[in-house]
């Protein structure tokens, strides 16, 4: 069928924003390929009015496979369901988010349907004449950009880094067809059971989906000093990130770690203080849109990649910055 699919994600009946980011990518590609853009949702029960937003954000058709048992992500079952859909409808292209579920389900599906998958793309384009998807992704810690295509297998599939594109503005005049499909019993894998979810912090750090991240490193000197970073983060609605050194010292937990052995992030704004900018840390932030660094060492590596750098003592700069932002907020009111 002449369709490009994007894989939507949901939690408790709410669509996640990656679903709209993928549609915004998909819309441009689908128009270029002159093909239908479909959003595919595999998950718990969803209301029509919730799904409607997928049309507003670019979808032409929505496929929904919904069942209580699909609410939590289970790799095998989700992979079975998507594989079955691909075999029935034969889309030529599929984009999924490079989230923990996308990065688990898609390589599994790629084996089952015998096709290629390009991980963690930051740019997608269509090759003139062939309609091949040109998939560009960073590799080797962001030191190279590789452009990859899947010329002889179908569908061509890619995962796309969250936050690497913005959702389209809502267009409430758009509409389309919702195709609801029942979960086939034989696709449910009963081996793996989800026992629950644990959050050990009030606000669990989802730094991969954050618009703004405020990060601290060894230069923060001790755990308590992260308090001023949290205050700064508050002004930007940001989440806290950390270098490996800060995590290894127990000043922040591992889910906050940015870099090669932590998370790769693509926020609009990355503010960091007391981080030297080791190659392993930079590997995680190369696709940030703007980087602001505060470091007392004028030769620190981080200034190589910063869009704005302050050479100075963070213990002077951050409290003063917090004060100014606080004042500005009061005046703004």
């Amino acid at each position, binding site marked *: 069928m002449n369709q490009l699919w994007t894989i939507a994600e949901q939690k408790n009946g709410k669509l996640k924003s990656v679903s709209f980011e993928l549609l915004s990518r998909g819309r441009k590609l689908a128009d270029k390929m002159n093909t239908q853009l479909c959003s595919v949702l595999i998950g718990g029960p969803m209301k029509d009015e919730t799904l409607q937003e997928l049309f507003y954000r670019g979808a032409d058709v929505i496929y929904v496979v919904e069942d209580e048992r699909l609410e939590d992500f289970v790799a095998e079952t989700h992979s079975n369901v998507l594989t079955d859909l691909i075999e029935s409808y034969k889309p030529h292209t599929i984009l999924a988010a490079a989230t*923990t579920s996308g990065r688990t389900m898609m390589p599994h599906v790629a084996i089952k349907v015998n096709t290629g998958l390009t991980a963690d793309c930051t740019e997608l384009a269509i090759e003139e004449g062939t309609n091949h998807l040109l998939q560009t992704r960073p590799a*080797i810690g962001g030191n190279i950009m590789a452009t990859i295509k899947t010329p002889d297998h179908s569908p061509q599939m890619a995962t796309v880094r969250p936050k690497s594109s913005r959702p389209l503005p809502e267009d409430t005049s758009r509409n389309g067809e919702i195709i609801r499909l029942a979960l086939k019993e034989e696709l449910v894998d009963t081996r793996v059971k989800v026992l629950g979810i*644990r959050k050990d912090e009030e606000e669990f750090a989802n730094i991969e989906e954050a618009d703004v991240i405020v990060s601290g490193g060894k230069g923060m000197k001790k755990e308590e000093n992260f308090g001023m970073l949290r205050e700064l983060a508050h002004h930007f609605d940001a989440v806290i990130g950390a270098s490996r050194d800060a995590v290894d010292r127990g000043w922040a937990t591992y889910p906050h770690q940015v870099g090669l052995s932590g998370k790769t992030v693509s926020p609009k704004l990355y503010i960091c203080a007391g981080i030297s900018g080791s190659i392993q840390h930079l590997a995680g932030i190369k696709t940030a849109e703007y980087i602001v660094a505060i470091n007392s060492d004028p030769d620190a590596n981080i200034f190589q990649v910063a869009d704005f750098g302050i050479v100075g003592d963070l213990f002077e700069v951050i409290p003063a910055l917090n004060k100014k*932002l606080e004042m500005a907020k009061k005046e703004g009111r």
Partner: protein
Amino acid sequence: MNIIIPIKQVPETSNVKMDKEKGTMIRDGVQTVINPLDLYALETGIQLKEKFGGKITVISMGPPSAVKALKEAVAMGCDDAVLLSDKKFAGSDTWATSYTISQAIKKIGHYDLIIAGERATDGDTGQVGPGIAAWLDLPLATYVSKIVKVDEKELVVERLVEEGYQKLQMPLPALLTVVKEISNPRLPTLRGKKRARATEVPIFTAEKMDLDPEFLGLKGSPTKVLKIDFPTVTRGGTLVKTGGEEGVEEAIDKLIDFLKEKELV
């Protein structure tokens, strides 16, 4: 408990070069190490062996020089090592790599658990672990940060996901990919190094594993690298210094102007 751990030998990330024409990495002359993220898989496996007995087989697919990585793993505490090496494997993408490794695992046989790294620091895809699970039809848990409970038949793990830690229960055999939080890798011991030197590493070729030639190497890889670019990393941003001429206040005012200009505040 018998454990299989696929490990990859990777270039030290700080000094890697690429062949621009072929789009492949130039591996000669670059220092290589065990993929740093595979060390957590090795440590996890070794701890399980210490608890339950059994043995650990490490496997690596790569050039003959990857024996070095395998021996390092033996020095840490693994028992056997197998190298998958053949000119026909060259240029494999994650699809062909996971096929080749899964067939080797079938040949080795008799395992309860496979533990892979979260991703390799060169290719950086994290697709090989789930790919192997798909080929072998094994229960899969990715991003595992903790083994909560384990016995000879069953496993309870926590995996790090966007919303927190998801707790999963699954029967063995199963495949896990693990993140840094799961363990603190140990260093090789002197005794281990001695044992590693004495360890024979068998080499599995395509012929020995009875593989489908259509599924191997560059030819068997659905994805093709078209080109490689070297992005400029430096951004040439503004740098302001506090102290001396410029006070902290001025620096902050400039920062706030910058943020306003970019519509970030």
